[in-house]
């Protein structure tokens, strides 16, 4: 087998040597860079911080009377006859527009039951004859820890839904054989004096980090 032989089979020119060695070193360097993986590595994504634990809170927004008793809260607000006199209903005062004037002792109460003023009257619900109870229009007298029937006396369909579990919060066990279903009362979510639920801060949405297209398009996204 005859191999191709260059004409000058003797010494290669020193210049050729130099070039060959240069190429060799270049290739070796390139190989080293490959091994060290100096480029082509995907940059690490910044770490998304975990969500604030306040958004994981499952406790209801408000405490019912029964919750406050159970939690041994300060119940002095419910001790009506510490200030009021028994057997003497406190009078209700109105301003020039026939709006109720909240006395300064009850300044923490903000009236806002409905879009009209007709229901912003204390004795629609509170019992003027016995201030530590509530009264229903049909004559029933209810304790503070049993307020849902009072709400239900006006909000019938909602009360029906609540009784059947279609309205209101539940927690615990869906399977009553394995544990108790806890159902919250109206006042655990609604302030009876202003039942409309106020707006809230939403938890952060999907993080923009992983939607490069949206960022490029300038879509406003959560940065936290």
């Amino acid at each position, binding site marked *: 087998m005859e191999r191709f032989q260059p004409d000058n089979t003797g010494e290669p020119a020193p210049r050729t040597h130099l070039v060959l060695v240069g190429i060799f070193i270049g290739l070796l360097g390139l190989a080293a860079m490959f091994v060290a993986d100096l480029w082509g590595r995907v940059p690490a994504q910044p770490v998304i911080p975990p969500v604030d634990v306040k958004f994981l809170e499952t406790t209801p927004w408000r405490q019912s009377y029964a919750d406050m008793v159970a939690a041994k809260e300060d119940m002095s607000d419910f001790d009506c006859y510490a200030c009021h006199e028994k057997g003497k209903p406190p009078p209700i005062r109105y301003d020039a527009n026939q709006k109720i004037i909240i006395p300064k002792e009850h300044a923490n109460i903000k009236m806002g039951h409905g879009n009209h003023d007709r229901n912003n009257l204390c004795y629609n619900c509170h019992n003027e004859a016995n201030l530590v109870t509530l009264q229903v229009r049909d004559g029933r007298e209810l304790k503070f820890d049993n307020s849902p029937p009072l709400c239900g006396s006006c909000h019938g369909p909602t009360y029906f839904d609540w009784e059947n579990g*279609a309205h209101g919060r539940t927690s615990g066990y869906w*399977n009553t054989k394995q544990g108790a279903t806890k159902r919250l009362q109206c006042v655990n979510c609604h302030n009876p004096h202003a039942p409309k639920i106020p707006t809230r801060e*939403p*938890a952060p949405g999907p993080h923009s980090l992983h939607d490069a297209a949206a960022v490029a398009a300038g879509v406003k996204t959560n940065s936290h």
Partner: protein
Amino acid sequence: MVANNPPNASDKTSDRELTRRSFLRGSAAVSGVAALAASLSPLRELKDFTSTEQFLQKYYKELNPEDMQKVINRIEGEVQHQYGIRPHVRDLKPMDGVEFVYCLNLTRCIGCRKCVHACVAENNQSRSPEIQYIRVLKLPHGSLDLEKAEHRYDTKQVPEKGFFYMPIQCQQCKNPPCVKVCPVNATWQEKDGITVIDYDWCIGCRYCEAACPYWARRFNFAKPQIPKERLNPEMSYLGNRPRKQGVMEKCHFCIQRTRAGRYPACLEVCPVGARKFGNILDPNSEVSHILREKRVFIQLKEEMGTSPRFFYYFDK
């Protein structure tokens, strides 16, 4: 470098001489080996190899109780090794006479996204990169055109006037397209209605993701990251045990809670009680009442014929 001498070198001095041919051959060999090493170099980053036990593990439905116990012990060991917490892994089976249904009250939902994060916390989803099972859509009143939906809303306060909110998660279809397309049967529908995934059987082909009309399935593109202190140690094999890179996951109605009789995490955290869950086969359950009495208006994308077990309803 070894010089490859031409066989018919004319003189002795050229025996040790570097010829162009031998040089090219040698350098090609060196750079070839180096390139091979470089191409294999990502393997250096592989730390958690699949254990032999996991590799040889049988299909979920073929595991007998003793096999399952071994699998659970392996998973508990792996989680403890990775997170330093000994989890409680169970394999809860569907109950007789139970079919789960979810109802969501669109009149009540305020779009606060607490369900999204309660779900992430309960089900050990990756925090970074982020995986979330629930997507809350914001839609203008008077329309159910999902094209107008926005799920990246970033307002200071919710709800906004003129909009309603529609959370979407796995609809647990009665006729699930995701199950049909799975080439390896790694996902299937259980008799209580939950479509589950065996993370050890999934090959990560993402066919199910493409088949799902609700965008309910999520893929672990990267290794999931969960802070140790946020790990939920109460786990289930088909549910919230930590996933690995390259597998699908999705909402499973909190299988580790609901098969133990409890409500799902998204329901318990909902501050307005818009979410309702229960057994449709029990005529006295909340969901039965809702489906009988309320204006249950849609199964989402009804025309797909998927027949979801997730119902949206209205008050009034």
